[in-house]
């Protein structure tokens, strides 16, 4: 039941991505191109998603706990660190080179027209970053 519902939510999420234009790199890159062929559409995607989520989350949290899990799994950290800001900057550069954010790419994979090398490169980047983070923690542990 949990898996089936997750499948349905992924399906709905993917449809939203495709309807909104987030899966179309040409549109995403034009959103970033303020000084050129600017297409502000993606601001409306964020607006629609934030409106529904901000209100929806508020109502959902009133339930006290999720319908099919024991608790809400939420990040609790509030500090700003180099990893967050540096990582985000690197992501912004990468996103601007391809036009694909991770959420924009996955639904396009099903169309068969997505560049598979971008998908492979994103997965490789995730694994590489995990390895680098682990290495750093191990080093920090030795130093302490």
């Amino acid at each position, binding site marked *: 039941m949990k898996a089936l519902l997750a499948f349905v939510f992924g399906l709905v999420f993917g449809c939203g991505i495709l309807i909104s234009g987030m899966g179309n790199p040409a549109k995403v890159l034009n959103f970033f191109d303020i000084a050129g062929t600017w297409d502000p559409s993606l601001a409306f995607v964020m607006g629609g*998603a934030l409106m529904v989520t901000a209100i929806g989350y508020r109502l959902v949290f009133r339930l006290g706990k999720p319908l099919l899990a024991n608790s809400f799994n939420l990040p609790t950290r509030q500090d700003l660190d180099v990893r967050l800001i540096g990582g985000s900057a690197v992501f912004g550069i990468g996103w*601007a080179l391809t036009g694909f*954010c*991770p959420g924009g790419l996955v639904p396009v994979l099903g169309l068969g027209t997505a560049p598979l090398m971008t998908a492979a*490169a994103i997965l490789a*980047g995730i694994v590489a970053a995990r390895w680098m983070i682990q290495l750093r923690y191990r080093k920090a542990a030795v130093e302490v």
Partner: protein
Amino acid sequence: MTEFTPLLSFAGGMVIGLATVALMAVHGRIAGINGILNGFLTTQFNQDWVWRAAFLAGMIVSPLVLLGLTGQMPEISAPSAPSLLLIGGFLTGIGTTFASGCTSGHGVCGISRLSARSIVATVTFMTAAIATVFLTRHVFGG
């Protein structure tokens, strides 16, 4: 040029929001695609792996369902050179993993909860993307 589609984009955003809220209501989970991919890449095929795999499978079949419902293939064009598609993808994977989130995790889920980390992350990646496109299109590009 791409066509300005405020209504369609807003509606698509609302659909993204709906799925995001539903995943929290039922599974108690953040609908962050980087986080889901990260958790999917494991050798421990437990319950957490199963919902992530199912969510990703749903995303992958979504264009076919949309095609069945509307009779139209969504328009996709990736204008970047192959080398950039490769380098950019790698940077995207590294960056979102270091930042613990991408457009969906920080940009939608985090900002909806007014998380300071997510607001800073979103402003940072948007600014970096705008600066990068300015450089590639107006400084170095044609």
